[in-house]
């Protein structure tokens, strides 16, 4: 089977790493994008494969002009099937590649002291007021973190959940500003847990309906 890792612009420099289970990486040209693939054993262990897939994508990011990571699990019987699956999406892929050129993704997560849901309250109204106050405060802190980072990024993807989790595509020339903005927030809020990871390939900005 063929395993698909990512798309790049034509004639990419392939990194000196192997794919899943030591397989050789190959560049398969589809119109004017390249699909980076390798042969895989369909019954192979999934756990290691997931990590190896990620490491291949990161190695590609370091060498290629642009890279569009593909979600784990895209597999094809042969190249003909791969080309058929890419189908008429080549133009979209090319545009997405142009959009993420020169960008690396940084992920930011923040966990605050979660106020216990069962706040001891005399009555329902007191409980609701206390909960509202803590939600409003959490939103304010999230905004305080997000806005300076967003100014240093080309886009953003912020989760709508209770816990703050965001991804930012940051260009090379903006990276220092981004790091400084983050450091500023962290210094101002020693009571919060903030974790920033990256640089990653632009997983969150591939333009996929799901992504």
């Amino acid at each position, binding site marked *: 089977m063929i395993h698909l890792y990512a798309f790049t612009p034509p004639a990419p420099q392939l990194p000196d790493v192997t794919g899943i289970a030591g397989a050789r990486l190959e560049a398969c040209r589809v119109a004017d994008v390249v699909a980076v693939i390798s042969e895989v054993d369909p019954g192979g262990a*999934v756990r290691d494969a997931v990590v190896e897939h990620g*490491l291949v994508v*990161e190695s590609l990011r370091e060498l290629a002009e642009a890279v569009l990571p593909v979600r784990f699990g895209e597999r094809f019987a042969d190249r003909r099937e791969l080309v058929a699956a890419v189908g008429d999406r080549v133009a979209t892929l090319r545009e997405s590649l142009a959009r993420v050129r020169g960008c690396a993704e*940084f992920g930011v*997560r923040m*966990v605050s002291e979660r106020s216990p*849901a*069962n706040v001891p*309250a005399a*009555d*329902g*109204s*007191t*409980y*609701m007021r206390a*909960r*509202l106050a803590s*939600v*409003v405060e959490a939103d304010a802190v999230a905004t305080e973190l997000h806005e300076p980072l967003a100014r240093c990024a080309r886009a953003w993807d912020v*989760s*709508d*959940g*209770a*816990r703050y*989790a965001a991804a930012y595509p940051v260009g090379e020339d903006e990276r220092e500003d981004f*790091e400084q903005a*983050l*450091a500023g927030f*962290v210094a101002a809020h*020693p*009571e*919060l*847990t*903030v*974790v*920033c*990871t*990256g*640089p*990653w390939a632009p997983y969150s900005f591939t333009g996929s309906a799901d992504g």
Partner: protein
Amino acid sequence: MAEPLGDKLMAANGDVDRVARALEGLGDVFPRRIDADPEKVERGLAQLVLTLIELLRQLMERQALRRMEQGTLDDDEIERLGQTFMLLADRMEQLKGEFGLDDADLNLNLGPLGSLL
């Protein structure tokens, strides 16, 4: 060549472990190994059910708080909602106790729903 993930941590402040634990649930997208041990099956089922209940409770509470903020709830409704959520939270603690589960156990990844928690 540098250690593959060694330089991927840009900044970390505070209890990094909490973030790691919060992320751990993402592995549950994989199908589970079929385990016939009845005790484990029951516990796994309880974990799933309580996770879903907790998700719904938090979603409903957040929705109610949004409406409260917008001013579209009257005092009576606020009082009744508050009572209900307090009751649900107490009941959840009871159920967690009965099954020997803590907050970390209710961290199952629910796919696209998971990010709501």
